[in-house]
Every structure is written in structure tokens, then in C-alpha cells.
């Protein structure tokens, strides 16, 4: 049992991080049926933004959130409003291709500016732990990831449930024509929704940057995590996203504990496949 305490605790905490990585993508899929292939790269853009702002202004990564989050809102608003909205329509392929294009452009842009070197967002928290027992420590950075992840998802939930903007987003995803008849400018609403999704991706990017190293090409790796979370948890529910993050992270870390570190990703995919086979709509999915 002692061997499993640490991976279980880490898995639970990492689950919160996975959930916030995925929430923006899950939200956008729910709203405009867009599989945002650039989601991971946009998140990594958040990491690099934080890196530059932190160095330039001499502030810690968490403080850079105050700038990264609003900047990411405008990035999202722009990507949806000026690129994706133009190809929105009956078919799924054109938006998919545009998102793919955004992904490639972003990766190469980051490569040009930042070189392929590994980076991380320096913080004292990265090495701090809270000792619980002789065999169990809580890594402070993981704890922070989980707390911020859950907080952001809760805020998003409240926004979607309680505000006119949130209801308009849900209404537009339910029936676009009817939403327009209520006075909703749906194109504008989609851009705002993407802006909000990217705000959460910005937070995720900063947390990921504080927790792991990142490169201009790290985006797709997180896109796959986001996919995994969404597939396991089911689309369109915040509960599902949290549960999906938890299950994916736990299965990765427990798998690594049982079979060895080389099997971490593999075990995540196995659980993914099992969920796909048994419950393709995801654990909390409805359709």
C-alpha cells in the first residue's frame, strides 16, 4: 500500500491540471462542434507568453497570469472571430483544417522566436513539498495545479449557468437560429466563447510551464491529453471533464508504478481504449 500512496495522491492532483488543460477544448467542441487541433499549441503559447512577460518584467509566473489571461482572451477571440467563423457551416472538415493550420503556424512561430530549447517557468514552488508521512509527500506545485484547475472550472461553470453570456453560449450551441431570434449575435458569441476557452488554456499553459518543461513542439502532447480527458469524461459536462482528468492521470501514474515509468503513457491510452469500447459517449456523456 505504501508504494501506491504517492502515485494516487499525485494522480489526483495531476487530474485537476489535466482537467483545466481539457476544459477549453471540450467547451468549444460542445458549442461549435469544433475539434480545435490547435488547442495544445495555443496553451503552450500561454506558457511562452508567461516566460517572456516574466523575464521582461521580472515577475513570477503566477503574477504573469494577470496579463497572460487577458491576452489569451483576445487571441481566442481573434482565432474564432476572424478565422474559424469564416468556415463555420455544415461540414466539419474546413474548421478542422483551419485549426490544423493555426497549430502549424503557431509551432513554427514559437520555434522561430524561442529556438527549440527546453524551457520552464522558474518558481520556488516547484521543489517544495509538504511531508505527510515517511513515505508520502505532497508536491506543492501539484497541489497548486489542482486547486487552480478546480477553481477555474468552477468559475467557468458559474459563468455558463448564471450569466446572460453563458446562457447565450449554451443556447447558441443548442439551436443557433433560435438564439439569433432571441437577439444573440451568434458569431460574436462564438468568438467570445473561444476567448473564454483560451483564458482557461492560458492558465493551463502557465501551470504546465511551472510544473514541466516545454518546447515549441509540446502542444500536440497536451492536445492528446485533452482528447483523452474529453473521451473519458464525456463532452459538455464540467463534472465529466474533472472526472476524465482524474481517471487519465491516475491510470498513468498507477500504471507507471506497477509496470515501470516507461508504461505511463501506455496505461493512459489503455484506459482510454477501455472507456471507448465500453462507454463511447464517455462516463458522464449523454449522447
Amino acid at each position: 500500500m505504501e508504494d501506491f500512496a504517492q502515485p494516487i495522491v499525485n494522480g489526483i492532483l495531476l487530474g485537476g491540471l489535466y482537467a483545466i488543460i481539457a476544459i477549453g477544448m471540450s467547451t468549444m467542441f460542445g458549442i461549435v462542434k469544433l475539434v480545435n487541433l490547435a488547442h495544445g499549441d495555443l496553451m503552450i503559447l500561454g506558457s511562452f507568453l508567461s516566460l517572456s512577460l516574466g523575464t521582461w518584467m521580472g515577475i513570477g509566473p503566477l503574477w504573469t497570469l494577470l496579463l497572460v489571461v487577458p491576452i489569451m482572451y483576445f487571441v481566442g477571440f481573434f482565432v474564432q472571430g476572424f478565422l474559424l467563423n469564416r468556415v463555420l457551416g455544415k461540414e466539419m472538415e474546413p474548421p478542422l483544417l483551419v485549426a490544423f493550420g493555426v497549430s502549424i503556424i503557431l509551432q513554427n512561430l514559437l520555434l522561430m522566436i524561442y529556438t527549440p530549447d527546453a524551457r520552464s517557468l522558474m518558481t520556488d514552488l516547484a521543489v517544495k513539498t509538504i511531508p505527510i508521512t515517511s513515505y508520502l509527500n505532497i508536491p506543492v506545485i501539484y497541489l497548486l495545479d489542482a486547486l487552480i484547475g478546480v477553481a477555474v472550472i468552477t468559475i467557468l461553470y458559474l459563468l455558463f449557468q448564471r450569466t446572460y453570456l453563458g446562457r447565450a453560449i449554451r443556447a447558441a450551441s443548442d439551436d443557433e437560429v433560435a438564439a439569433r431570434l432571441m437577439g444573440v449575435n451568434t458569431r460574436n458569441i462564438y468568438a467570445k466563447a473561444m476567448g473564454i476557452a483560451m483564458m482557461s488554456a492560458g492558465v493551463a499553459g502557465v501551470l504546465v510551464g511551472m510544473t514541466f518543461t516545454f518546447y515549441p513542439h509540446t502542444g500536440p502532447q497536451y492536445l492528446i491529453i485533452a482528447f483523452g480527458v474529453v473521451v473519458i469524461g464525456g463532452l459538455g459536462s464540467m463534472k465529466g471533464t474533472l472526472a476524465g482528468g482524474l481517471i487519465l492521470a491516475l491510470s498513468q501514474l498507477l500504471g507507471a508504478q506497477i509496470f515501470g515509468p516507461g508504461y505511463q503513457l501506455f496505461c493512459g491510452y489503455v484506459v482510454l481504449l477501455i472507456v471507448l469500447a465500453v462507454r463511447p459517449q464517455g462516463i458522464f456523456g449523454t449522447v
Partner: protein
Amino acid sequence: MAEVLALRVFDLDAHYKDFQALWAVSLDVKKGEVVSIIGANGSGKSTLLNTISGLLTPTRGTIEFFGQEIGDLVPHKTVAEGISLVPEGRRVFTRLTVNENLVMGSYVPRSRPNKNKSLKDIHELFPVLKARQNQMADTLSGGEQQMLAIGRALMSEPKLILCDEISLGLAPMIIKDIYKRLMQINAEGLTIVLVEQDIRRSLKAANHAYVMLEGKVVLEGEPSSLTEDEVKKAYFGL
């Protein structure tokens, strides 16, 4: 008192790509009136309402709302001006609760401050919507969904409401009930345009009626002045 025109549609054409769906349609709706538009399937009734509310842009002609040209406005602008459409097939937000649907009706900035009062009024008008307020809209019966669609359209405090086949697929009892409520709000001053296939019911309710056929207005007049024979001929294009 001089009669005020709520809506004046003049010489209106509308197309779906190359297909012309409306041909020089003209129609007047006076403030406070109930106007019926009847016509067979595919005669262009929904197209006309959709064009008035801005879902479709006319290719020719004008639409004036209380004297103001609104022909090229998009839907979120026409709602703000005070035109509400109850669309064909109800189109309630299935994954929103009944109350959330109603609150969406008060989305335009003009009506947001009065949201709570409007909600209370709709709950009084359709008590069943109050009883079901926290249910998802797709759990409602067809009649209840139609009431919700009407209630939602009223939440924006419109000056004019356009109703597209609100009796379609509903039991006669329910239709009678819904019409009773509509006449009640008309008595309070709301101008109403009714699109129906049910000739008798909509003629009974209307101050003025238009018959459409193949995208054109082929007959109009006060229901009392129209003979049944005349209407049938126009309706079927005999």
C-alpha cells in the same frame, strides 16, 4: 384616432440562392391588429416571416416597422426593435431549463431590466410553465413546448409578435387554450401576425387576412368580407 401602421411590407422579393420564394409581396399590419396569413405548404409563409425578422435578406422591396426601414437588419437587431418571431417547429432550447429558455427571451439589453416582471407575467399567462420551471425543455409535451416558445418570444416585450404555425400537431383543446391567451395579450395592445394552415381558426381570430400561393399574395381582406369559396379558390389556386 388615426390608425398607426405597425408593419408595412411593400413589393418584397426573397430568394434562396436562385430560387425565388417571394414575389412582390405587400402587406400592412395596423397597430393592435391580429393579421392572419394562410396558404398551403410551400406557399412562402415562413419565408415571409423569416424575412421580416431578418433571418433572410430581401432581394427587393421594403419592410417598415413603425415607419422605420428594417429590411436589411439582422435578427438580433429586429428583436431589439421590437419584433419577436415564434419560429416554425417551436425551436425551444432543449438542453436549457424552462426558466432559462424564458430568460433567454429577455436577452436584448432593452428587456433585461424587466426580466423578473416579464417572467412573472409569463408564469401567469401559462401557469404550466411555472410548474415546470426547472425542467429541461425537452421533457415538455408538444403543447407545453409551444407555450414556452410563445412565452419566450414575449419575454423581449415585443411590439409585434409573428407566430409561425403555432397550432401544428397540437390537440384542439390545447390550440383553443393557446389562442385564448394570445387574444388576451392582443387585448392588452400587442400586435400579432398569425401564420396558419388551419383556415377556419385563423380567420376567426383575425382582423385582416392574407392568402398566399406560390410566393404571392393572391387574396386579402377582412375575414367577414371573404367568402369561403373565394378563400378556398385562392388557397388552392383553382
